[in-house]
């Protein structure tokens, strides 16, 4: 009964103080709602992130595949495998993987044409007849006579240029192909009526084009490896194209280059099909493509919409079961794989690394809301001082006083706990409408996902709010009655924090935690699992409060100073508030603290959002390197759109001193590169142009050889291979054909491209010839012709009719009259070129030496020629020439080509400090550098720190060299190339473009690639930015930051209004006195307003800088990217002062309005009431 009466008392108190308690209820609801928001919001944002990740993932990242490869394919096994996969798919993973496709495919087959120049069937038939004839003849032989050996059957063999295809089938094959010509082949399970008739097949359109086949044409299909007798004569029944080339069933294969069989036919014909051997041109007893390597593969389609956030663990387990059972039930034959778990792991890591700051910020908001609760509870208690005093004088014990207040707090907390989950759900939903998330949700409310129970959060929140409101009674309940009575008029002096030095304790604790966090990191990645450090979440809020507590000590001093300054003002409206501030600054300190906490929270949230956004841009810029980066074959040599700036970049790896640690290497042209690269001031000590210019100390491109006239279209040289003697030639004629040597050039064009050019005719050992090299074309398959001016870098000769691998056989050559032909003929001086790899040159040798050599020995039966006859010989020439002396036998395997080439300077290398330190190098030091597969001498000319687009995690260190200089080294070395395929020269694979119109630049560049070819990759700054900032968890983080800022404003408004209302009530007497003394109403209100605004202003200024300082403390959180690895480039604090000032301005306006509203009582009070206050 007593309890009921107590509760009745509490209820009456609650009802009587409903106005104030509604504030407490709102605050409590907010705190609990924010706590509940943590799991709800995180789960909801994660759910969006998951959906986004799944939908934007490539098929191969999410699909599950099962594959079996066999060399004993049978229809029975194939069906069993099919049933096994279908069964397990249905039982284990059908929820997320509802459908699958199956493809059955072989390894390569040769397409062997028949019926044309080589009619294999006719050959077979002929052989069959020959065999029969031989066997008949042999049967008629006398036993003493040796029987004639029957030749091997002429099984079809592929020509060197044979087209390679694969056999392909599937249970759903016909639906996936479009028949362009002919009819779909009929299923054929046994041999045709005539055993030798071809097997009908469908062929891809490209097969038809490349092999020049039409409907009805026949050809032989022969496996790449296998017995010679295994092949099949087929006939083109249909020419097909894929109905949808993008379908998963095609995988990475080209469906246009397949040979198709209906599944049943395939199953039947991969087993022996018995025939009458006599019907077969090669007398085989069976047909069929036996012992093939067949790959049966199932692609099980992932349905991204089917995966709910709650299913993440479920699907992991299901996939594991599926894989295990596939392996187990197939006896280990079928392997099932899925990359989805990897994607889910990435998702988990991202959730932790990005969720961490969300938690920390929510903790901050909760902390701010709690402070608001405690603050308002304390304010309320100050107002209730007389009532507590009354209760005490009426015989209420300390516990009874406490109990009444606690019960009241409990009721508020319980009410808040009941309503908070709904509020939290609404808040979560609302965030979906906030701009950052709205882009992802389409402006719809964010769908609330819930995995973990929210009950602990509700209960925890209720307890925290109950304690926050209830505990403040404890110090009050113990106070003497008289002190309690005066509380409303005279607030307490120093805070409990100061009295017990809790602020100092908080500072010490913050320092210890900060030290701990710095030591072990904000995210715990030990054991391969990424976990969030709970301290990291709590640290920001602890730091904010520590700062606040310290300020609680310092603010009164500051306010005293401000008050003193204000008292010096001439007007009373400033002097009076100043006097007040100076006299009792402690309570004002608490008000300023509230404002500092709330504006600090807002400033922090905005700075965090700004920093995050800037970091996204920085990271995007770092990844992209410039506005547009085109990567592809010869991309560096493509033409940059007019008005844009471009730079060719060659990317490779390298290392100083042949270190085993390979560094990432870029080769660039300094000026071009510096003009296009995105740069941030902390990437290096200087501007990019200053950093890279040391690669070309004299500002000029490296000298790669002899520059040919710009108009030169061909190069002419007279020469003759010094022949063997006439007699030797006659004797060795059969096995030693004429030595004819082809002149080869290595030339760099105006774009820096290295060209291998060859003469159109050869140097002969039978006569002097003028060889001509067409300078407008080269052997390299570049996208465009050579661009003048050309630079002749190297020159060498190769045998044009090599015997075996021999490309040079110790020949000597007489050579003279180097000249170019263009508008005019220009003689060339090759003095700049030096001999290399054993080539020797004798200058000014008589040109007649070739004829002399030929006639030095004449065949025995030939008459000695006269001098006139010698001079008439085509080998004879007057004057002098240079004698090239080859070093002896050289084969194509010998990489060192005897040549005449321009010497190259040492490479200038920029290197990062860590790599330099590891290699013991400093600026100015020389060292061999291995670049790609070769080693060059180089000199360290400077250090680099961070270079955008150089972030290859597999490499250790970074190096930059001059593109043209490296080009000389990489591409200047002659390689035997006349007979063999031209070895690929290294070309810059990247083109960096600085442009205002990236889309146009991409379009114009793409158009330069050959038809059917395209860029391997196109990286644009815009897309990179979008990729970074569109991650739902990142977006969710920004959204919660804005929510945090908004909540802070609400808290500040509510707190300030409450405080000012209390202050007005507290100082009613003082205001009454002022009015009674003749102070006008507005004057009193102005006095009061000025006083509050001075305090609020101080709080706002400190809060703004405090928020930025807090951001600084939180930077380590941001330094860890979505994958829990350090972000490149590091995150820098970015304060958007415009937004921040707008926010502070808005808060200030709202606060001033709330102060003015709260002080309206001062000006609205009638004089009679004022005088009554004075009388009291």
């Amino acid at each position: 009964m007593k309890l009921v009466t107590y509760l009745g008392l509490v209820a009456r108190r609650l009802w009587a103080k409903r106005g104030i308690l509604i504030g407490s209820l709102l605050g409590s609801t907010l705190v609990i709602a924010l706590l509940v928001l943590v799991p709800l919001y995180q789960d909801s944002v994660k759910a969006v992130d998951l959906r986004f990740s799944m939908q934007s993932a490539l098929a191969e990242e999410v699909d599950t595949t099962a594959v079996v490869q066999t060399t004993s394919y049978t229809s029975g096994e194939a069906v069993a495998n099919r049933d096994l996969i279908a069964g397990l798919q249905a039982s284990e993973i059908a929820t997320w993987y509802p459908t699958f496709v199956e493809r059955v495919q072989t390894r390569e087959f040769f397409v062997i044409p028949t019926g044309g120049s080589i009619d294999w069937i006719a050959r077979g038939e002929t052989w069959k007849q020959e065999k029969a004839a031989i066997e008949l003849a042999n049967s008629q032989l006398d036993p003493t006579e040796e029987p004639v050996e029957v030749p091997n059957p002429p099984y079809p063999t592929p020509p060197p240029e044979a087209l390679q295809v694969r056999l392909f089938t599937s249970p759903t094959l016909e639906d996936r192909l479009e028949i362009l010509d002919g009819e779909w082949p009929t299923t054929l399970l046994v041999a045709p009526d005539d055993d030798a008739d071809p097997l009908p097949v469908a062929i891809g359109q490209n097969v038809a084009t490349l092999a020049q086949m039409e409907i009805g044409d026949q050809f032989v299909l022969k496996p790449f490896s296998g017995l010679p007798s295994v092949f099949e004569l087929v006939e083109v029944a249909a020419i097909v194209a894929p109905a949808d080339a993008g379908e998963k069933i095609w995988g990475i294969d080209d469906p246009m280059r397949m040979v198709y069989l209906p599944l049943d036919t395939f199953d039947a014909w991969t087993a022996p099909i018995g025939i009458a051997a006599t019907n077969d041109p090669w007398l085989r007893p069976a047909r069929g493509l036996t012992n093939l390597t067949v790959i049966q593969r199932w692609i099980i389609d992932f349905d991204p919409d089917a995966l709910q956030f709650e299913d993440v663990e479920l699907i992991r387990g299901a996939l594991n079961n599926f894989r295990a059972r596939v392996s187990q039930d197939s006896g280990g034959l079928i392997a099932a794989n899925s990359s989805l778990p990897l994607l889910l792991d990435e998702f988990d890591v991202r959730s932790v690394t990005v969720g961490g700051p969300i938690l920390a910020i929510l903790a901050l908001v909760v902390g701010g809301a709690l402070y608001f609760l405690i603050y308002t509870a304390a304010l309320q208690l100050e107002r209730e001082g007389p009532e507590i005093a009354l209760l005490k004088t009426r015989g209420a014990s300390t516990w009874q006083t406490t109990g009444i207040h606690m019960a009241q707090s409990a009721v508020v907390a319980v009410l808040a706990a009941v309503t908070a989950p709904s509020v939290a759900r609404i808040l979560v939903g609302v965030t979906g409408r906030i701009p950052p998330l709205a882009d992802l949700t389409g402006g719809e409310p964010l769908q609330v996902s819930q995995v973990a129970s929210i009950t602990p959060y509700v209960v925890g929140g209720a307890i925290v709010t109950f304690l926050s409101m209830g505990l403040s009674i404890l110090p009050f309940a113990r106070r003497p009655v008289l002190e309690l009575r005066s509380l409303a008029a005279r607030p307490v002096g120093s805070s409990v924090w100061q009295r017990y030095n809790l602020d100092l304790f908080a500072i010490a604790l913050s320092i210890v935690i900060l030290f701990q966090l710095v030591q072990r990191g904000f995210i715990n990645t030990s054991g391969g699992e990424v976990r969030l450090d709970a301290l990291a979440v709590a640290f920001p809020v602890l730091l904010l409060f520590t700062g606040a507590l310290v300020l609680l000590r310092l603010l009164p001093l500051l306010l005293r100073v401000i008050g003193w300054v204000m008292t010096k003002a001439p007007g009373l409206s400033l002097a009076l508030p100043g006097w007040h501030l100076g006299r009792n600054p402690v309570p004002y300190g608490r008000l300023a603290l509230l404002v500092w906490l709330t504006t600090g929270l807002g400033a922090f949230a905005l700075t965090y959002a700004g920093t995050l956004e800037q970091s996204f841009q920085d990271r995007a810029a770092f990844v992209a390197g410039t506005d547009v980066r085109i990567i592809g074959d010869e991309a560096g040599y493509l033409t940059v759109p007019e008005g844009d700036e471009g730079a060719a970049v060659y990317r490779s790896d390298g290392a100083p001193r042949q270190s085993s640690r390979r560094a990432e290497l870029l080769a660039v042209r300094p000026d071009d590169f510096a003009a296009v690269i995105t740069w941030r001031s902390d990437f290096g000590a200087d501007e990019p142009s200053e950093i890279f210019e040391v690669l070309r100390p004299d500002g000029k491109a490296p000298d790669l050889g002899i520059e040919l006239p710009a108009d030169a279209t061909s190069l002419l040289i007279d020469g003759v291979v010094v022949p063997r003697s006439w007699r030797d030639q006659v004797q060795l004629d059969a096995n030693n054909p004429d030595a004819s040597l082809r002149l080869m050039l290595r030339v760099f064009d105006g774009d820096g491209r290295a060209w291998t050019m060859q003469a159109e005719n050869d140097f002969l050992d039978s006569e002097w010839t003028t060889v001509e090299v067409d300078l407008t074309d080269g052997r390299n398959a570049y996208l465009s012709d050579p661009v003048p001016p050309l630079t002749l870098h190297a020159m060498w000769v190769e045998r044009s009719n090599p015997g075996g691998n021999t490309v040079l056989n110790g020949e000597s050559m007489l050579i003279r009259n180097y000249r170019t032909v263009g508008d005019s003929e220009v003689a060339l001086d090759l003095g700049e070129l030096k001999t290399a790899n054993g080539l020797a040159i004798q200058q000014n040798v008589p040109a007649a030496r070739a004829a002399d050599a030929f006639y030095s020995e004449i065949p025995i039966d030939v008459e000695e020629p006269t001098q006139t006859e010698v001079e008439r010989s085509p080998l004879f020439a007057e004057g002098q020439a240079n004698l090239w002396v080859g070093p002896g036998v050289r084969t194509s395997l010998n990489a060192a080509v005897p040549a005449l080439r321009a010497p190259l300077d040492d490479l200038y290398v920029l290197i990062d400090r860590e790599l330099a330190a590891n290699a013991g190098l400093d600026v100015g030091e020389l060292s061999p550098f291995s670049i790609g597969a070769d080693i060059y001498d180089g000199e360290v000319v400077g250090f680099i720190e961070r270079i955008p687009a150089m972030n290859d995690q597999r490499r250790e260190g970074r190096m930059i060299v001059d593109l043209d200089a490296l080009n000389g080294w990489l591409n200047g070395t002659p390689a035997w190339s006349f007979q063999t395929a031209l070895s690929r020269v290294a070309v810059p694979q990247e083109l960096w473009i600085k442009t205002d119109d990236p889309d146009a630049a991409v379009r114009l560049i793409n158009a330069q690639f050959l038809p059917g070819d395209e860029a391997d990759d196109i990286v644009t700054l815009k897309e990179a930015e979008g990729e970074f900032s569109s991650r739902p968890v990142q977006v969710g983080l920004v959204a919660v930051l804005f929510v945090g800022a908004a909540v802070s404003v609400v808290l500040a408004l509510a707190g300030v209004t409450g405080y000012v209302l209390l202050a007005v009530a507290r100082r009613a007497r003082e205001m009454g006195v002022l009015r009674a003394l003749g102070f006008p109403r507005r004057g009193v209100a102005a006095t009061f307003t000025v006083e509050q605004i001075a305090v609020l202003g101080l709080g706002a200024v400190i809060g703004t800088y405090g928020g930025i300082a807090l951001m600084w403390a939180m930077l380590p959180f941001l330094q860890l990217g979505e994958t829990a690895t350090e972000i490149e480039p590091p995150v820098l604090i970015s304060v958007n002062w415009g937004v921040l000032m707008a926010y502070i301005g808005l808060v200030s306006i709202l606060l001033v309005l709330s102060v003015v509203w709260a002080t309206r009582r001062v000006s609205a009070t009638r004089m009679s009431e004022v005088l009554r206050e004075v009388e009291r």
Partner: protein
Amino acid sequence: MTRIIECDNLIKIHKQGNLEVVALQGLDFAMDKGEFISIVGRSGAGKSTLLQILAGLETPSAGRVEVAGTDLTDLTPKQRVAYYRRGVGFVWQDFTRNLLPYLKAIQNIELPMLLAGVPTRRRKKRALALLEATGLRSNAYAKVHTLSGGEQQRLALCVALSLGPQLLLADEPTGELDTETSLGIYDLLRRMSHGGGLSVLVVTHDVALAQRTDRVLRLADGRMATQGRFETQELLAVDRRGMVQLPRDLLIEAGIKDELTATLVEGGILLEPSGGSDGD
């Protein structure tokens, strides 16, 4: 008669910043059970301080004070609560300090009993009796703010008396009331004192009202100046050492300056200026 209050050499020093203000300077005072006493004096004389000490709200800096056998100089929190519940009742000048505005009249009276653990039925009975006694029966379930000032103060009396204290302390109980209402309150107090054996100590500025009490004590400079009922015949306190402090006005009126002559006469002591009368 049994003493309800005994103050012996009571000293109270208030500290206000660096200043020390002596509110009571060795005050000696006693009150018998059932007495109805008023204390008068100028502002700063120490009236409120004395009342607060007697109410157990302040502790004296020195001296001894006992109320109904309870030594108030060194109360534990528990003893203090017990003292509030059973020893003393308070009525303050400001209505709002006497009553909880959100409770009805009867609930206000029941509150102290509720806090003291009095059973519901007894509480109600006692509350109604008090309301009956103070003429507020019809207002039992009225809200506080609907009552007039006099009614509120009478209700405050009921609240103060709800637990049946031996001593009622009232600080300017009629300070905000008109004369007629004030007289009604004083009559009520007198009835309770003389009829119910309640000791009542009232602090007031109003001499006319003070004269309606059994004894008027005048406090000046933290000491008891005079005791009595009438202005021409002051009641003076005699301390344990036999010292009497004569009011300054009386000395001037009597022409007493530095010395006086005390003559034992029938029924009393005659005090005259030293060297006889100046002539009047």
